[in-house]
C-alpha cells in the first residue's frame, strides 16, 4: 500500500469529552448496579422485618400495684371492661368493689342483694360479665355486672370531677375518659340479679356450678349444670321469652336430673357446654364423670376417667372459648388441654372420649387460678407461688411470664383475670393486694410449630397440617400451617412441568435440529408470542372454558395423551414408506403440515373413541370409577404403566435382537426396509401393551389401588387443568431458552457427528443435548421458577382448596395464590397480614433455592463444555 501524504494530523490524545462520558457511564453503572443489589436486599430485609414480630410472643408493658380497701369476705370473681378502665371484684356476700384500673381509686358501686343467703357455689361466664350463685338451699340465681359506656362532648361533663390520672376523671361513680376527637367516654357499672331458680330437687346445698350464656339475638339461652350435696347433678336450659304484646318476659326451663354420683365423691368442678350436650363433674382427686345429656332427654353417665396422674388434684377444669378445649390445671403445676373426640373404639357408650391433646410447660407450684380470653385461645394460669403465665392453646406456647413463680409469699395466690382484649392482666392476692399489668401480645397464635408443624386443632381427630385462616366466630381457631400451601405450590409446579418439559424440550429439539431454518425463523417467534399472553387471561380461559371442557370429555382428554404420541410415531414410520425422491420434495412446510394434520386426526379420534374407552376401562363412568364406586384398579395401572413398559420393552428387544435386526435391515431395499422397521415398531407396541397389562394385573393382585392417592374424586378446577394452563405459560419460556441453548452448540460439533455417519437424532441425543445441557437445564429451571411464582392462573383455575392431597383431579392452593386470595381479609399488622408476608418470604426462599441450585448445576455443566 502506498502511503498518501495528508495535511491533516490526527490528534493522538483522548478527547476530554470522551473521558468525561466514560467516567459518567462508569459511575452511573456502578450506582445503578449497587441500587439494584440494595433494592433486592432491602426487599428481603423488609420481608424479614414484617415477619419477625410473629415469633416474638408478648411483653409486659406496664405494672401498677395498689392496696385496696376491700371487705374481708372471699373473692368470687374479677372482671375488667374492654378498655381497661374499671375493674370489679365480686365477693361472697354479694358486695361489689370497683376501682379505676390506672390509679386504683375506689368507685362507689351497687351490690347484689343476696338476702343474706349463704353462697355455696359460684360460676362466672367466659365474658366475665355474667355469673351464677349457688345457695345453701339448693337454689341458683343468675346475675350480671355490666360495664356501660356513653360518649359525651366535653361540655356535657358534670362539674366537680376528681382527676384520677392523665385523661381520666371521676365523680365517684363513673369514670370520664378523654378520648381522641375531643370527646369524653363515660364508663360506669350496672348490676342485675335475677330471681332464684330451684336447681336441687332435695333442697340440698349446691356444691359445684357451671353457667353458660348464649345470645340468640333477643333470646338469651342460659345453660346450667349444678350438683348438690346429695351428689345429684342437674342440667338445665333456661330461655327467656319476650312476649311482643305484653312486653313480659317468661322463663322456659328444660331440666334433666342426672344419675347420682357414687357416695364419697368430692366434686369440686362442674362443666357444661352451651348446647347442654355434655355435663362434667370433677372429683378433687382428678376423676371426671362425663354425662351425655344430649337433648336433656335421657341423660346417662357416659364416661369416667382420670385426667391427672394419681395423687395429683384437679384445681382447674374449664373451657376455652369455643368449648372444644378443656383446660386441666393440676396440683403438680401441670397444664393440659383435653378434647372430647369421637373415637369409634372408645369404651364410652356414646363412642366419645376425652383425649389429652396439648401439654404446656408446667409451673413449679400447683395451679390455682385460671382466666380464659373471650376472644382467642389465649389464657392465663396462676400458680400457688404467685407465678403467672399467659399462654396460647394452639401454639402451646408461653407467651409472657407475667410474674415469676417461686416467691416465698403464698399470699399472692388469689385470683387472676385477663382483660377482654388480652392487653392486660389483673391479679388479686389473698388477703387483698392488687397488681395490674399492661400486656402486648400481638400474635399469640403463631410459632414455628403452628406455621410449619403438625397441630392438633380443636375438633380434629388427629394432628394435621391445615390452613384455614379465618372463621365466622371468635371461637374459631385460626389454622395457619403453611405446609399445605407449600405442598400446593410444589404440586402445581410438578404437574405443570410434567406436561410442559417434554413438550417444550421436544419442540426445541425439533425446531433447532430438524426443522428447516426458514420455517424455524417463523415458528419460534410465534411460540414466543404465547409467552406474552397475560396469565390472567390464561387463568380465566382455563377456569371458565378449559375446566368444564376437560370435565365433560375427561376420558377423551386422557386418551389424547396416549393417542397423540402413538400416532405421531406411527406417522413417522409410515413416512419412511414414502419413496425417497418424493419424501425429499416434501421436506419443510408440507411435512410440517402432514404432522399437524396427524395431531389433529389423533385428537379427533380420541374425541370419538373416548366414550368407548371410558366403557372399556372405567366401567362407563370415569368419575364414579374415581370415587371407587365401581371398576377395578388394573385399567388405570395399564394406562399409567404404558410409558414405563414401552421403554422397558424397546430397550429389551433392542438388546436382544437390535444388532441382528439392523444388519438384516441393511441388506434390504429402502421400501422393504421401511416395512420391516414398521413391523418392528408394531411388535414393540404389542409387547408394550402386553407387558403393561401383565404389570397392571400384578399390581391389582397385590391390592395397590391408585384411587385416593395419585387420583381420586374429581373436582372441576383441578391440577390437570392447572397443568394445562400453567403449561401454556411455561412452555414458551422453556422452549425458547432451550432452543437458543441447542442452537448455540457450535456447528463444527454437528458436522463432526454427521461426518461420522450419525443421524440427526443420534447427533442431537449424543452430542448436541449433552453439550447444551447447561442451557437446557437453565431453561427448565427458569420455567420452574415461573411456575412456582405463578399466581393468577392458580387463583382462577386451581380451586384454592388448601389440601394435602396428591390427587391430580383435586384442587390446590399455592403460596402465591394464597397471598392474592387472603389479602382482602388481612388488616394491617394483623397476624394474618404478617403471615401473608411470611408466605411471601417462603416463596422468595423457594425461588431463591431453586435458582441457586439451577445456577450451581449450570456452572457445573458449563465447566465441562467451556472449552468449546
Amino acid at each position, binding site marked *: 500500500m502506498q502511503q498518501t501524504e495528508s495535511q491533516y494530523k490526527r490528534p493522538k490524545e483522548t478527547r476530554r469529552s470522551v473521558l468525561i462520558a466514560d467516567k459518567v457511564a462508569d459511575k452511573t453503572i456502578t450506582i445503578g448496579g449497587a441500587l439494584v443489589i440494595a433494592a433486592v436486599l432491602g426487599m428481603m430485609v423488609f420481608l424479614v422485618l414484617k415477619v419477625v414480630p410473629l415469633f416474638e410472643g408478648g411483653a409486659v408493658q406496664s405494672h401498677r400495684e395498689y392496696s385496696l380497701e376491700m371487705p374481708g369476705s372471699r373473692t368470687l370473681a374479677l372482671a375488667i371492661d374492654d378498655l381497661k378502665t374499671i375493674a370489679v371484684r365480686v365477693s361472697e356476700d354479694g358486695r361489689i368493689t370497683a376501682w379505676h384500673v390506672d390509679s386504683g381509686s375506689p368507685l362507689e358501686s351497687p351490690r347484689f342483694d343476696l338476702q343474706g343467703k349463704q353462697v355455696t357455689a359460684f360460676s362466672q361466664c367466659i365474658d366475665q360479665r355474667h355469673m351464677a350463685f349457688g345457695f345453701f338451699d339448693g337454689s341458683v340465681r343468675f346475675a350480671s355486672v355490666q360495664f356501660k359506656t356513653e360518649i359525651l362532648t366535653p361540655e356535657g361533663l358534670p362539674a366537680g370531677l376528681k382527676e384520677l390520672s392523665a385523661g381520666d376523671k371521676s365523680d365517684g361513680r363513673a369514670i370520664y375518659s378523654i378520648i381522641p376527637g375531643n370527646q369524653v367516654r363515660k364508663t360506669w357499672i350496672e348490676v342485675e340479679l335475677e330471681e332464684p331458680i330451684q336447681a336441687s330437687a332435695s333442697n340440698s346445698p349446691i356444691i359445684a356450678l357451671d353457667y353458660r350464656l348464649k345470645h340468640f339475638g333477643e333470646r338469651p339461652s342460659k345453660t346450667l349444670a349444678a350438683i348438690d350435696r346429695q351428689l345429684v347433678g342437674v342440667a338445665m336450659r333456661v330461655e327467656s321469652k319476650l312476649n311482643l304484646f305484653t312486653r313480659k318476659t317468661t322463663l322456659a326451663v328444660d331440666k334433666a336430673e342426672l344419675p347420682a354420683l357414687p357416695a364419697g365423691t368430692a366434686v369440686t368442678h362442674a362443666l357444661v357446654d352451651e348446647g347442654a350436650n355434655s355435663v362434667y363433674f370433677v372429683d378433687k382427686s382428678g376423676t371426671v364423670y362425663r354425662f351425655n345429656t344430649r337433648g336433656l332427654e335421657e341423660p346417662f353417665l357416659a364416661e369416667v376417667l382420670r385426667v391427672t396422674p394419681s395423687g395429683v388434684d384437679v384445681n382447674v377444669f374449664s373451657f376455652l372459648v369455643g368449648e372444644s378445649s378443656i383446660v386441666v390445671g393440676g396440683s403438680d403445676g401441670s397444664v393440659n388441654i383435653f378434647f372430647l373426640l369421637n373415637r369409634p373404639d372408645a369404651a364410652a357408650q356414646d363412642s366419645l372420649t376425652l383425649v389429652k391433646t396439648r401439654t404446656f410447660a408446667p409451673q413449679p407450684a400447683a395451679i390455682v387460678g385460671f382466666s380464659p380470653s373471650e376472644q382467642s385461645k389465649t389464657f392465663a394460669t396462676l400458680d400457688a407461688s404467685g407465678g403467672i403465665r399467659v399462654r396460647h392453646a394452639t401454639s402451646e406456647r408461653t407467651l409472657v411470664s407475667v410474674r415469676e413463680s417461686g416467691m416465698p409469699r403464698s399470699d399472692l395466690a388469689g385470683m387472676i383475670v385477663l382483660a377482654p382484649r388480652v392487653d392486660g392482666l389483673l391479679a388479686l392476692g389473698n388477703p387483698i393486694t392488687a397488681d395490674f399489668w399492661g400486656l402486648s401480645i400481638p400474635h399469640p397464635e403463631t410459632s414455628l410449630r403452628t406455621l410449619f408443624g403438625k397441630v392438633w386443632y380443636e375438633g380434629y381427630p388427629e394432628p394435621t397440617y391445615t390452613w384455614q385462616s379465618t372463621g365466622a366466630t371468635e371461637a374459631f381457631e385460626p389454622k395457619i400451617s403453611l405446609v399445605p400451601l407449600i405442598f400446593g405450590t410444589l404440586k402445581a409446579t410438578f404437574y405443570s412441568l410434567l406436561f410442559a418439559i417434554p413438550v417444550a424440550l421436544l419442540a426445541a429439539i425439533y425446531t433447532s435440529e430438524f426443522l*428447516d*431454518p*426458514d420455517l424455524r425463523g417463523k415458528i419460534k417467534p410465534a411460540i414466543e408470542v404465547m409467552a406474552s399472553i397475560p396469565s390472567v387471561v390464561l387463568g380465566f380461559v382455563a377456569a371458565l372454558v378449559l375446566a368444564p371442557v376437560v370435565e365433560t370429555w375427561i376420558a377423551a382428554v386422557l386418551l389424547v395423551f396416549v393417542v397423540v404420541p402413538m400416532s405421531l410415531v406411527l406417522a413417522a414410520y409410515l413416512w419412511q414408506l414414502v419413496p*425417497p*425422491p418424493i419424501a425429499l420434495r416434501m421436506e419443510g412446510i408440507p411435512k410440517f403440515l402432514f404432522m399437524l394434520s396427524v395431531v389433529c386426526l389423533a385428537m379427533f379420534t380420541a374425541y370419538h373413541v373416548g366414550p368407548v374407552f371410558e366403557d372399556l376401562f372405567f366401567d362407563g363412568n370415569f368419575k364414579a370409577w374415581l370415587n371407587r364406586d365401581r371398576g377395578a384398579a388394573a385399567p388405570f395401572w395399564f394406562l399409567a404403566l404404558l410409558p414405563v413398559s414401552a421403554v422397558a420393552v424397546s430397550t429389551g428387544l433392542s438388546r436382544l435382537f*437390535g*444388532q441382528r435386526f*439392523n*444388519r438384516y435391515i*441393511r*441388506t434390504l431395499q*429402502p421400501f422393504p426396509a421401511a416395512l420391516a422397521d414398521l413391523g418392528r415398531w408394531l411388535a414393540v407396541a404389542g409387547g408394550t401393551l402386553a407387558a403393561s397389562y401383565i404389570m397392571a394385573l400384578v399390581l391389582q393382585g397385590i391390592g395397590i389401588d391408585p384411587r385416593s392417592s395419585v387420583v381420586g374424586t374429581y373436582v372441576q378446577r383441578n391440577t390437570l387443568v392447572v397443568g394445562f394452563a400453567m403449561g401454556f405459560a411455561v412452555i414458551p419460556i422453556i422452549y425458547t431458552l432451550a432452543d437458543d441453548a441447542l442452537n448455540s452448540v*457450535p456447528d*463444527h*460439533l*454437528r*458436522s*463432526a*457427528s*454427521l*461426518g*461420522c*455417519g*450419525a*443421524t440427526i437424532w*443420534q447427533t442431537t441425543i*449424543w*452430542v448436541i443435548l*449433552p*453439550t447444551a445441557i447447561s442451557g437446557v437445564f437453565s431453561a427448565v429451571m427458569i420455567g420452574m421458577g415461573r411456575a412456582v411464582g405463578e399466581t393468577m392462573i392458580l387463583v382462577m383455575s386451581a380451586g384454592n382448596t388448601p389440601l394435602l392431597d396428591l390427587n391430580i383431579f383435586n384442587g390446590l392452593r399455592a403460596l402465591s395464590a394464597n397471598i392474592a386470595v387472603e389479602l382482602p381479609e388481612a388488616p394491617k399488622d394483623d397476624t394474618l397480614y404478617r403471615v401473608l408476608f411470611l408466605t411471601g418470604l417462603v416463596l422468595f426462599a423457594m425461588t431463591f433455592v431453586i435458582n441457586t441450585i439451577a445456577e450451581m448445576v449450570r456452572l457445573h455443566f458449563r465447566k*465441562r*463444555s467451556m*472449552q*468449546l
Partner: protein
Amino acid sequence: MDMESTNGQTVYHIKKGPDGTLLSIEHFDLWYGETQALFDVTMTVEKGFVTALIGPSGCGKSTLLRSINRMNDLISGLKTDGKIVLGDTDIYGPNVDVIGLRKTMGMVFQKPNPFPMSIADNVSYPLRVDGIRNRKVLEETVYNALVHAALWDEVKDRLRDNALGLSGGQQQRLCIARAIAADPEVLLMDEPCSALDPVATAKIEDLIDELRGRYTIIIVTHNMQQAARVSDNTAFMYLGKLIEYGRTSTIFTNPKVDRTRLYVTGRFG
C-alpha cells in the same frame, strides 16, 4: 479389526474403478441459492493416493471437498448438477443413503472438533452410533485408531479424561483417529493444520504420510509447501473452476497453466 463382520457395512463396498480411480467427479456444478460456487469440475481421485486441493481463499476447494460426502446438504438453498461417482455409485443419485455414505468417508475439519466427552468415547463414537456395544470390539478399535493416529502413547493413561483437555495438535490427531475408527475408504481433510502450530503441523503431516496407501486421502490446504510435501496429486482451483490437476511434482515444477505457476510460486493469491 474387520468391520465387515461387525456392522455389516455392505452397501457402499467400494470397488476400484478402471485405471485405479476410486472417485470420479464429472461436470459437477454447485449453487448456493443464486450464487454458483463450482463450475463444471471434472477430476478423478486415485485409490490410496493423497490428493491435495489448493487455491486462494474462496476458490471452492472446501465446497468441493464437502460435496464429496454431502455435508453441504445442511445448507438451505443448495443445488447441484453433474455427478460424483464413488466406486460405481453416483452419490447424488436418487436412492442414496446419505448417512451410509458418510460412514465410508471419514472427515477431518479445519478446527479440531472433539466432542465434549472422554477420549475413548470420542474415538469409538462412529461405532457406537452404529449400535455396536461390545466392549472388547470398542476397546480394540480405540486402540488401533489411536495407534494409527500416533496418539496412543500420549493419551493411553487418560482415555477416560475429557478430550477437551488435550492440546490443539492432539485434538486434531484425535479427530483423525475418530475418522479412522470408522474404517473409511476415503479420508477428507479440510485444512487440518490451519489452526495448529508448526510442531503439531509436522506431526499431522507425518501422520498423513503414514496413512498413505491405507486410505485414499483428499486434503484441502492453504499451505503450498504442505501440499508439495504430503500429496501425490494436486488440483489447483480458482474462482470455482478446476484450473489444473496432475502429479504434484508436475504442478509445482512445471505447471501447464500460467495462473497455476503464478500461484505456486507465490506471486499471486
